[in-house]
């Protein structure tokens, strides 16, 4: 068991190296000069020689400053070296350390992700179990259809519909359009503040859960159906156990195993989805930061976000793997043998 965990952790070192290389290449092989971005539009507008010379000099200065004058492999090694010391560089835009910028926005995104996660697992799993246990019943068929529709609904469409129809004085105004708290937040009572947060987070959380929710519920149902067909369930029924006990006690445990692995896949989907949801609802999280960074071509920030979100995903997968080998000891055993 210990060997398995250590082996998995060691395997992540090459993974992280390749991720950083892909990130680096995507950002550094880009056409166009990031220093031009730094100098803004002025570089194009001014045509006189003196000013051209000035921008040239400024360009050289920034090139030196950000290490862009060195050959690519050197740049990569310097970047990697700095990252290993916890220095992800400074933003091109306001020259603040990118790590600070990311960390001050992380709590909001994490709150939305964790709330969505809880929502998804708390509702999707019971629905999946119920559907499977009553296969082909009316409720099963209805939920299957609804879940299928939810699964195919583009979240940015649902978000747009919500903004247009539920946050709009022209139609119905229930929820606030943007941000995470109202302007008069400080003057509210504790309960009022809680309610304010609830209203602001309700739409982003539910909408970012939709697809994963439907996916997980469908997976739970099919996993349960698979288990229910097995011989030991027939045995359990044959010895006279109630259907409730058969499903919740005997079938549930084994049918949950494949569901655990899905956590690893939902995490990157959520980080990707946060770009859309946070942009639509103007939520100051890392998704919106990433969107802004891409618009500004703020390379240090883009690279840091790509690396960090991959890193988070890697840790997620690692935890899932370890959890998995606890739940199903056969996994660690066969992997060790192989």
């Amino acid at each position, binding site marked *: 068991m210990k060997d398995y965990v250590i082996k998995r952790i060691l395997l992540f070192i090459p993974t992280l190296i390749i991720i950083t290389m892909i990130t680096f290449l995507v950002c550094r092989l880009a056409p166009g000069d990031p220093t031009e971005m730094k100098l803004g539009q002025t570089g194009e507008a001014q045509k006189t020689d003196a000013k051209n010379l000035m921008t040239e000099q400024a360009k050289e200065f920034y090139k030196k400053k950000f290490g862009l004058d060195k050959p690519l492999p050197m740049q990569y090694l310097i970047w990697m070296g700095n990252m290993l010391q916890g220095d992800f560089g400074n933003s091109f835009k306001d020259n603040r350390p990118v790590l600070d910028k990311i960390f001050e926005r992380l709590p909001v995104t994490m709150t939305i992700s964790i709330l969505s996660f809880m929502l998804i697992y708390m509702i999707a799993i019971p629905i999946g179990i119920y559907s499977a246990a009553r296969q082909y019943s009316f409720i099963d068929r209805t939920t299957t259809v609804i879940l299928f529709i939810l699964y195919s609904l583009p979240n940015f469409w649902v978000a747009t519909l919500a903004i247009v129809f539920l946050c709009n004085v022209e139609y119905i105004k229930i929820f606030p359009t943007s941000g995470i708290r109202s302007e008069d937040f400080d003057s509210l009572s504790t309960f009022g503040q809680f309610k304010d947060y609830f209203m602001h987070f309700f739409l982003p959380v539910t909408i970012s859960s939709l697809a994963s929710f439907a996916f997980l519920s469908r997976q739970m149902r099919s996993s349960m159906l698979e288990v229910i067909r097995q011989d030991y369930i027939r045995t359990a029924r044959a010895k006279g156990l109630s259907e409730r006990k058969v499903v919740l006690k005997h079938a549930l445990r084994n049918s949950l195993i494949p569901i655990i692995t899905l956590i690893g896949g939902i995490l*990157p989907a959520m980080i990707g989805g946060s770009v859309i949801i946070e942009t639509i609802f103007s939520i100051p999280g890392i998704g919106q930061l990433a969107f802004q960074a891409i618009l500004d071509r703020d390379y240090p920030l883009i690279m840091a976000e790509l690396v960090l979100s991959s890193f988070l995903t890697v840790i997620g997968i690692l935890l899932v793997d370890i959890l998995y080998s606890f739940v199903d000891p056969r996994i660690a055993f066969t992997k060790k043998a192989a």
Partner: protein
Amino acid sequence: MEEKEELLDKMNSELKDGLTKEQMDSKKQVGVSYWSLVKHQFKKNKLAMVSMYIVVFLVFIALTADFLSSSKPLYASYKGETYFPVIKDYLNDLGISKWSPDMINANWKQLDNENKLESVVWTPVPYGSREIDLKNSLSPPRGDHYLGTDAIGRDLLAGLIHGSRVSLSVGFIAAGIALLIGIVLGSMAGYYGGKVDLLIMRFVEIMMTLPTFFLIITIVAIYGSSIWYIMAAIGFTSWTGDAKLIRGEVLKVRNMEYITAANSIGFSGKQIIFRHVIPNAIAPVLVSGAFAIAGAILTEAALSFLGFGVSATTVTWGSLLNEARGASNAWWLAIFPGLMIFIAVVTYNLIGEGLRDALDPRLRD
């Protein structure tokens, strides 16, 4: 002596005939027992069949978009001359025949309004997707703006019709790229096993940890938002599932006797993979292909929704939906473009599900 030879000949020919007949029969049976069974099973699935018709319909719209919605008439006669402006545009672009200089920029609408055209037949939607009708900006569905207009007066239905081209072509080609990479890498991993397998699967795992959507936006934003970059960016980041699937199928097929037989005859690894392994492992790939198209359409729509779409002047479903955010009471902009994206995604997902059920032998009676 002669009799004996004759007998031998006869026996030989009988044997040959018998064999070929048997072979033909077995070939026929294989055909009947697999693909036609799948087809039969698929046809029983009503939702999947309806989806199939919808997809055909969408493809038809995409192909004939210029004849369904255009700022020029299909047919007009003006000053005694007969014109087919829509067709003429095609010929003009192909260099086959040229517009006469005084007619190339003719404003047909104005001519029609001033009753200068002797006879005219407009396209069913008499607006082009980029045609700006400022007098009717943000108009709700009315008159000949069947689904209303956007903030600068472009007809919504015309935009949806022409937008289907971008959505469907990105869907097909991006999914095609993903499938191709997935099939090649997956079958190599499955067939060769060992170190090749280990390397490829490590690479798949690494690709899966990358935040795909974020990476696609980055690539499209940095390298320019041409439709080819979008297709490539989606294709190159979404092949991992296909690779894993194919690998699994190949592992199943690899140890079958006919592969051993092909090996013993001396076929090369490449020949065996492409001519014997892949055709027998391809069925589940069709399923994932259908889902991949749905995914690619969704991603492209999300990209243009966020403003990283094909180009500022090209109208797509995503870019139309995006306009709903700026127009507070334009319900038509919020509903119809999203509905189109949803329909396209749902139909491909339903086809995928239908195929999967049709291919799953456990469900067969």
